[in-house]
């Protein structure tokens, strides 16, 4: 098992296509947390992120004959599929509101208490961040966050979004230009964590 765990994505993909149950397990371990955090950063919900993990990994299996490996890594492909999944998710609308709602309703999660609080705080923080980024058009937001949060290269982003590299560059440039004032404005109203706590306490 140790040997296969050290194999490259390209080698694992070949093994996967040959009905590699073992290869899938390795890829699951390699990418589940990546997809989990990726999805959380787009949805603001850890539970939704769990569902995205399942869908993306299932897509990897279903599309194993068609997956195109770019730059030796499955990460761009994973990002692209995860984004599609999130875009078309039936629950994609109003996810920010639901994040607050869940806190207000005191929903319980089977987890140690500290972890629950910590995860809920994550969701509040992430929701604030996503709301602030809503000032950007979706195409620019997607490119910017892939660049900054996942640290993908221009070429990898182009692969993930199936765009020409030039379009990636132009969208990133526009996002950077737009981000300054919009971010400052957003944080003047949404950046104070105490205001979030008040919402949690009174909603």
């Amino acid at each position, binding site marked *: 098992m140790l040997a296969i765990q050290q194999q490259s994505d390209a080698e694992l993909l070949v093994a996967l*296509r*040959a*009905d590699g*149950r073992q290869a*899938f*397990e390795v890829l*699951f371990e390699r990418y*589940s*947390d990546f997809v*989990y*955090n990726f999805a*959380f*950063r787009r949805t603001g919900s*850890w539970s939704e992120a*769990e*569902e995205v*993990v*399942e*869908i993306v*990994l*299932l*897509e990897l*299996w*279903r*599309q194993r*004959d*068609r*997956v*195109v*490996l770019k730059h030796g890594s499955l990460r761009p492909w994973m990002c*692209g599929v995860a*984004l*599609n*999944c999130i*875009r*078309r*998710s*039936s*629950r994609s*609308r109003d996810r920010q509101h639901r994040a607050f709602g869940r806190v207000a309703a005191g929903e319980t999660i089977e987890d140690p208490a500290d972890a629950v609080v910590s*995860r809920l*705080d*994550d969701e509040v*923080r*992430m929701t604030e*961040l996503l709301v602030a980024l809503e000032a950007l058009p979706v195409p620019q937001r997607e490119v*910017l966050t892939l*660049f*900054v*949060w996942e640290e993908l290269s221009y070429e990898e982003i182009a692969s993930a*979004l*199936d*765009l*020409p590299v030039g*379009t990636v560059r132009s969208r990133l440039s526009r996002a*950077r230009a737009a*981000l*300054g004032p*919009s*971010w400052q404005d957003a944080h003047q109203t949404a950046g104070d964590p105490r205001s979030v706590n008040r919402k949690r306490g009174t909603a």
Partner: protein
Amino acid sequence: MNESQLRRSLPHERRLPYERREAIKEALMARIDADPPATARRPRRHGRRALVAATMGATVVAAGTLAAATDLWSGPPAPTRARQDLGDLERLLGRDGRVDQGRAVELARSGDRVLYGAPTGDGGYCITIGTDGGTGQCTPFDETSLEKAVWFGTEGRVDQTGGRYMGGTVFGRVTDAKAVSVEIPLPGGAPAAQVAVGRNGFFITTLPEPAWRAQLGGAETGPVTVLDAGGNSLGTFDSAGNRVAM
């Protein structure tokens, strides 16, 4: 706001909780074990295709809803593999969604690319392209009433090496009952592609390179026009969903 601040604003990364990780893994492994071995899988006829679907935009004009379409699911029955693919999409629907695989039908066809669909238990529907795990998506019932006159997405195709795009597929649905075709602009001064809208509102067409590539980048380029039987425009919309002309 700079990139460093944007990065620092993120909550710390977390690991998938152990119990959930194991549950998800177990479910996926069960799905994998249920698949036929590679040697028994349907042979590919046209090389590998990459799911590079990027939903390009949902466009405008509130019109009839899916619920109003009476015989939407009366077309030729979908093959078993398409039904299975549609069943796999249930995950997109949440707890209340169930794909009625038994009612899966062919909705539209363009060459070898076929759009299949099936109703869901909650009154929505799911669609998928082809029988090889291609692009798929679902619209729950509570979103069908919000469905706009036109929505469309794309699916790219790559050659055998997986390194060169061979064009792609544009597919979608028109809910305006008066619509008979969709006009998709092509680059280089070529005549726009006229795509017939089926009786159920769905359409699909394949575009060669570079037309497909240009269309995929359509977020910054040409609008899509919906036409009635007389060739009159019912509206022209950009991919962000804004009406740009009548």
